[in-house]
């Protein structure tokens, strides 16, 4: 029974429909029940994601579904390959964790004896959380460039209000800046999409893959789309919107934004380069992308070293860690061969997954720390390990993964990329990988070393810390660790159901 | 006959171009708004002429514009009232 459901595409539909139902029910029941409704939905979403993974794992094939029975180019196809399934699982787990972690202020009633039917937070946060899941799942599943545009806008419209949840002037400004970057990014993506339609008469990714021909028009289209998506992914030098946005949001929202939301547009860059125009990108174009990634690693790393506040440090670290993702593009040129799906892509996606768990854990840990001691000044965190041991442990594990220390998931990702850099003779990327690791080590130990210090007076706790929320943070960090300990299965999953080489597909 | 309607449409388009000058030059906000109103009517005329030359759906577009043409003026007038405590009759330098 389960395998029959998981091998046909019905589960793909449910991964889109469930979060939308969550949104509609949250809208209807309001803040009083929004949390319950959305948490139930998130649990179901984890089940659906694991069902999809099972289906792909057992058949070794991608799962597809033609909505309304209309096949492309007229209709829209949903398609889950290994990449989608892995990212959907990450999304499901991180969003569930964010839901469980959400502080009391996001629940109903916000305070005892409150006469209101709902409070702003008790409705808005859950609605946005649900929308984020719907948007991410659509990004991972849609095979149609226009549906993916709608998905990008969903991601942005869910992310922007999250940034501004606290309503302070700084977060409003950060949210507005983020929205403008996101809008420009998606309109340039859409520009490329429509031009592709003008040349090839379809928006379906696998049909396009069989039709595209290299040429100046195609390069220009690809450039528009990639720049647009890079702006949304906060790829250096289009990153300026990210630190204030991610640092200003409430921790549960920061975790979603840094772990998931920025990955949506990265995932589309992957789709674009590896699936829409497989085999065509030129080495020089991918070197440019790699250079931007390298710039991000350096720039983000150095700025993270200079931050005085924990949340900003973590946000700058996101810029650096996103840089690694883009090293996958130049490295995807194997030993003199063309641009292809291979270990470089696996390394990049591994980095995306490991970073998602680690960064979500880290932002949530930072949130607990700020709540417990009333500030997040890095200089005053000395001795924190003695008062918040579990939180600090989680933070430490997540930090090890971001630095790339074995046996974490971050290590596996960086190791794969290093190996590819060595075997493909692109040693210069290896230099950036290693220096980036040292930078990450530097900024993380700025936090960890004082926190573990024994000879300082620990900060006083001004509020008790929920054991349950600490556990959620720790589980996320352990997931980043587990990704490294059990890396074989996920690495294999990432290679399943990838589209066959370009010349096989005929429209 | 269609050619005649095209010529008429082109002439109305020319008057639109001229009234644009008023939108651009002002000087008062009300002048710009009024010129925009005239442009709206001109646009409706063009659409009707297009409908006359065979594009039937143009009438519905014209109807939509006619229905909504007042909205901009209303939004302009009403929203200005809030800041009427400090009347700013914005003049070009």
């Amino acid at each position, binding site marked *: 029974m389960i395998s029959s459901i998981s091998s046909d595409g019905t589960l793909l539909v449910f991964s889109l429909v469930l979060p939308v139902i969550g949104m509609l029910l949250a809208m209807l029941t309001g803040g009083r029940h929004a949390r319950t409704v959305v948490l139930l939905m998130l649990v179901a979403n984890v089940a659906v994601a694991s069902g999809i993974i099972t289906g792909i794992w057992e058949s070794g094939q991608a799962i597809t579904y033609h909505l309304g029975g209309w096949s492309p180019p007229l209709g829209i196809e949903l398609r889950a390959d290994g990449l989608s399934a892995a990212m959907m699982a990450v999304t499901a787990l991180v969003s569930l964790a964010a839901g469980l972690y959400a502080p009391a202020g996001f629940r109903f009633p916000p305070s005892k004896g409150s006469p209101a039917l709902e409070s702003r937070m008790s409705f808005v946060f859950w609605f946005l959380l649900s929308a984020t899941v719907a948007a991410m799942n659509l990004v991972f599943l849609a095979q149609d460039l226009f549906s993916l545009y709608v998905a990008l806008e969903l991601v942005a419209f869910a992310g922007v209000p999250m940034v501004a949840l606290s309503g302070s002037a700084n977060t409003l400004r950060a949210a507005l800046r983020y929205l403008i970057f996101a809008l420009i990014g998606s309109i340039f993506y859409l520009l490329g999409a429509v031009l592709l339609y003008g040349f090839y008469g379809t928006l379906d990714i696998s049909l396009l893959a069989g039709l595209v021909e290299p040429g100046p028009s195609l390069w220009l289209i690809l450039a528009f789309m990639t720049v647009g998506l890079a702006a949304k992914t906060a790829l250096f030098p289009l990153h300026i919107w990210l630190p204030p946005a991610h640092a200003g949001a409430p921790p549960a929202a920061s975790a979603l934004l840094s772990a998931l939301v920025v990955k949506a547009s990265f995932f589309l860059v992957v789709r674009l380069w590896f699936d829409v125009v497989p085999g065509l990108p030129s080495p020089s174009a991918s070197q440019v992308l790699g250079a931007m990634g390298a710039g991000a690693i350096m720039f983000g790393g150095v700025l993270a070293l200079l931050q005085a506040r924990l949340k900003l440090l973590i946000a700058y670290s996101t810029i650096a860690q996103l840089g690694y993702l883009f090293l996958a593009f130049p490295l995807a040129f194997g030993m003199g061969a063309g641009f292809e799906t291979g270990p470089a892509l696996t390394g990049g996606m591994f980095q995306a997954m490991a970073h998602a768990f680690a960064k979500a854990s880290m932002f949530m840990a930072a949130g607990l720390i700020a709540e417990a001691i009333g500030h997040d000044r890095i200089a005053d965190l000395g001795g924190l390990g003695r008062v918040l041991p579990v939180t600090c442990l989680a933070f430490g594990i997540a930090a090890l993964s971001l630095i790339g220390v074995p046996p974490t998931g971050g290590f596996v990702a960086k190791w794969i990329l290093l190996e590819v850099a060595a075997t493909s003779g692109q040693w210069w990327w290896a230099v950036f990988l290693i220096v980036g690791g040292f930078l990450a080590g530097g900024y993380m130990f700025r936090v960890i070393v004082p926190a573990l210090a024994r000879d300082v007076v620990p900060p006083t706790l001004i509020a008790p810390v929920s054991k349950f929320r600490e556990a959620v943070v720790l589980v996320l960090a352990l997931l980043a660790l587990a990704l490294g300990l059990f890396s074989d299965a996920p690495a294999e999953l990432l290679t399943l159901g990838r589209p066959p080489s370009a010349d096989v597909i005929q429209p | 006959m269609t050619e005649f309607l095209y010529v008429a449409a082109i002439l109305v388009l020319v008057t639109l171009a*001229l009234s644009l000058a008023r939108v651009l030059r002002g000087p008062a906000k009300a002048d710009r708004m009024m010129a925009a109103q*005239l442009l709206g*009517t001109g646009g*409706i005329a063009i659409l009707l002429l297009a409908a006359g030359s065979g594009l039937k759906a143009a009438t519905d577009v014209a109807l939509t514009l006619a229905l909504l043409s007042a909205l901009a003026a209303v939004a302009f*007038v009403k929203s200005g009232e809030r800041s009427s405590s400090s009347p700013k009759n914005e003049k070009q330098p």
Partner: protein
Amino acid sequence: MSGLWDLLTILFVSMGVFFFVAGTVGLLRFPDSLTRLHALTKADNLGLGLIVLGLLPRVESPQDALKLLLVWALVLVASANSSQLIARKVRREES
């Protein structure tokens, strides 16, 4: 027969376009906001009305004729009221 109708169309549409031109000239040349408003309403009401009249012989069904007249009526209502609103605003700002 159709020749006569065509002649009517040409006549009325030409007059309508003339009023548009006149209204525009007024809008550009008249010295102050209120007189410009006056020029504008003329163009709105008469110019469009004449064009509608001119196009009436060309419609295929009574429904389409009704729609044409409705457009005219709506523009009349809208322009009369919005000019009044704008005039009120002009007066208020001048006082």
